[in-house]
């Protein structure tokens, strides 16, 4: 160990952890394992002019047909919903009119009864009425 105890272990590690030699023939074995062709050949990408694949050939029409079907189905659904809403609104309106008519009839009857009562109160008393009082 050296004279500076603070660095003893670090110095020992540096001394004793020096890289060791790779096994004999390592480079030769590695070079033999390398691919035969030195550099990979880069083939530029060119789009194929040949017949497109079935997925590519039928994909777009199928997607369009599916979109159309979905659009038709949604349209029918919206139309059905709208007709249903209109029917409900019409029924509600009829109910409202009937209720209004009943109310007007009730008001008319009440008005007639009030008229009769007013006349009865304001007309002069008859002889029969006096006898009944005594």
């Amino acid at each position, binding site marked *: *160990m050296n004279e500076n*105890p*603070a660095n*003893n*272990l*670090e110095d*020992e*590690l*540096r*001394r*004793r*952890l*020096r*890289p*060791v*030699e*790779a*096994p004999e023939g*390592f*480079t030769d*074995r*590695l*070079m033999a*394992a*390398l*691919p035969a062709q*030195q*550099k990979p050949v880069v083939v530029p990408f060119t789009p194929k002019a040949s017949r497109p694949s079935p997925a590519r050939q039928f994909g777009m029409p199928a997607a369009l047909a599916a979109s159309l079907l979905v659009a038709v189905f949604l349209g029918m659904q919206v139309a059905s919903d709208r007709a249903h809403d209109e029917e409900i609104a019409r029924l509600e309106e009829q109910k409202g009119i009937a209720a209004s008519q009943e109310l007007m009839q009730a008001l008319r009857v009440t008005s007639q009864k009030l008229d009769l009562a007013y006349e009865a109160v304001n007309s002069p008393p008859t002889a029969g009425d006096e006898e009944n009082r005594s």
Partner: protein
Amino acid sequence: MNLSTAQSMPDSLLAQARAGDRNAFATLVRAHQGSVFSIGLRMLSRRDAAEDLAQDVFLQLYRKLDSIESLEHLGFWLRRVAANLAIDWLRRLPYSATRPLDEGAEVAAHEAEHDPLMSRELLRLLGELPPHPRAVMLLRYQEDRDVAEIAAMLDMPVNTVKSHIKRSLTALRGQMIGAKLVDCEELP
């Protein structure tokens, strides 16, 4: 070939290797194979696995030569790939983390002037560290890389690297004192 040889190589060597010169590529391999093999050996504790790892690293290099910008970048790249590949192999393969390092011959050859028992024990204790701290210690003391470089190589914060070094040194000191390889007074 050692690190100084690698540093003295001309930059044109990399360009030649990129252009398909197999001899130039072989020269680059010879310059770095010791370091890459040693990282594999001290991480995986097996010579056969270390050679497989080194071969894998250089085959990756061969495929990625176009992305290597300079000889300095090459050194960084090789050590980064070797360390991370070793950590990955330790996760996936049944290598024993506590297996004694199988490099007795190398220790005897290189450390004849030192205490071979001490070297062997130090390497054994290093082999007991978990994969990440072990990789940090190897890059720090075998490859003499600074903490910022190690952080970049292992994709971890600089403070984590410092922490791994500090804890590993403390653990190694403790174990070496426990094994009575050194006196308590020698290692603080």
